[in-house]
């Protein structure tokens, strides 16, 4: 008898457990609301943008949006702006902007848009141009919106750490011409310019096609074994031994600008250990790269090969650099 009751209870529990709650249409809030997302991924590099999408809305019966503003804890560079257009995608897949107000105005840490169109709901893009003085610091944002009925709401975003890294893109290098690379200057020099900056030359780019040897495109430090610098005339006193460690499949998004969502961040440079690496690396191919550490231990860098042209004996490189000292 007891078993029988037990079975009935179990059956009842199953039936109750499987029952679905009835769906009800959510009731919108009867007030001004806002929401925000950060659209950019990866490290926040000085000189580049952090992009946000700030959405705001209120019921038509309550009034209209009057103004929207963003306050950054560190004032953005002059290129910072809050979009004054609301975008929709047309049938051809093109984003079409509809102006809702005047172009934004930057006042110290504030970026403001005053609405001129009767608007109840809109999503505005905010582009924070990271200033050089924010390097290594954290930045926070307060997005806020005001409506004609006196309501005001705000949304806090961050803090976001601004990277200490520097970045330079698309430096053309050519064998026996612009082939002297300086990590300190993040630049490439020809022989004439390199002679005046011999103490800053960290690497030499060269291309060699040697029978029975896979040499190809190479990055060799001036102080490396001369066998890896065949027929290279170095500037006098260029003798730095830069550590070079070859990498494959590290197509950093910022450097490569390809479809791979991989980002080199400050932490990668902090944890990098190439103390045992040689002063040269040969046989580079396009989309390869190399971790580099300067002889004085002041800089660590990642050099990415965007293009490599065997016929022209040239390449295009991009670099991310982290200052250690």
């Amino acid at each position: 008898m007891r078993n029988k009751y037990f079975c009935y209870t179990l059956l009842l529990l199953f039936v109750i457990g499987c029952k679905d709650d009835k769906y009800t249409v959510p009731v919108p809030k009867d007030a001004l609301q806002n929401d925000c997302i950060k659209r950019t991924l990866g490290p926040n590099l000085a000189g580049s943008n952090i992009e946000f999408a700030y959405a705001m809305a209120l019921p038509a019966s309550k009034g209209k949006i009057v103004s929207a503003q963003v306050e950054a804890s560190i004032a953005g560079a002059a290129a910072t702006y809050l979009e004054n257009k609301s975008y929709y995608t047309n049938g051809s897949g093109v984003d079409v902007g509809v102006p809702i107000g005047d172009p934004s105005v930057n006042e110290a840490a504030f970026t403001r848009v005053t609405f001129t169109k009767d608007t109840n709901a809109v999503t505005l893009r905010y582009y924070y141009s990271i200033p050089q003085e924010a390097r290594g610091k954290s930045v926070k944002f307060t997005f806020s919106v005001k409506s004609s009925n006196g309501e005001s709401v705000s949304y806090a975003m961050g803090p976001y750490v601004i990277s200490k890294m520097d970045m330079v893109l698309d430096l053309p290098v050519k064998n026996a011409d612009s082939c002297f690379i300086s990590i300190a200057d993040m630049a490439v020099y020809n022989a004439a310019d390199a002679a005046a900056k011999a103490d800053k030359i960290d690497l030499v780019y060269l291309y060699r096609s040697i029978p029975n040897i896979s040499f190809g495109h190479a990055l060799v430090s001036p102080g490396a074994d001369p066998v890896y610098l065949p027929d290279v005339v170095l500037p006098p006193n260029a003798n730095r031994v830069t550590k070079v460690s070859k990498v494959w499949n590290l197509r950093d998004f910022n450097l490569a600008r390809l479809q791979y969502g991989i980002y080199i961040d400050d932490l990668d440079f902090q944890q990098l250990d190439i103390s045992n690496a040689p002063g040269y690396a040969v046989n580079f191919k396009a989309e390869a790269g190399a971790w580099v550490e300067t002889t004085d231990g002041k800089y660590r860098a990642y050099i990415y090969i965007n293009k490599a042209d065997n016929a022209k004996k040239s390449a295009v490189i991009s670099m991310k650099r982290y200052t250690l000292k």
Partner: protein
Amino acid sequence: MKTYFKIIIVLLLTALGCTKDVPVDEDGLLVTSRAECYVSNFELLGVDFQTVRTKNAVIDTVACTINVVVFYGTDLKNLYPQFTLVTDAKLDPKITGKVDFSDLANPRSYTVISGNRKVRKTYKILITVQS
């Protein structure tokens, strides 16, 4: 109540019936009856995890040598060797990370131990740099 006791006893017997004394070595690996002991394939990767071999390694299972020709400019101090062994065999010393092969005069040796852990063969890795 009696039924419960019966179920527990059956479960206990089943559990005991499943335990078996299996021979394992100090690494917790199964010791089998296989006496075969050789390297069937050898790979050498650079720091970029790409092969540094110019062609297939030549494995001599009688002389116990592995001859590898590597690309010019290979960083011999930082290489990752990879061995493929016969079934159930294991390698000593274990490869835990980068290995320094730069001392070409004193080639590195690795011992293959058979599945029954009774046969040991020491292979020498002979590296030649492309020139």
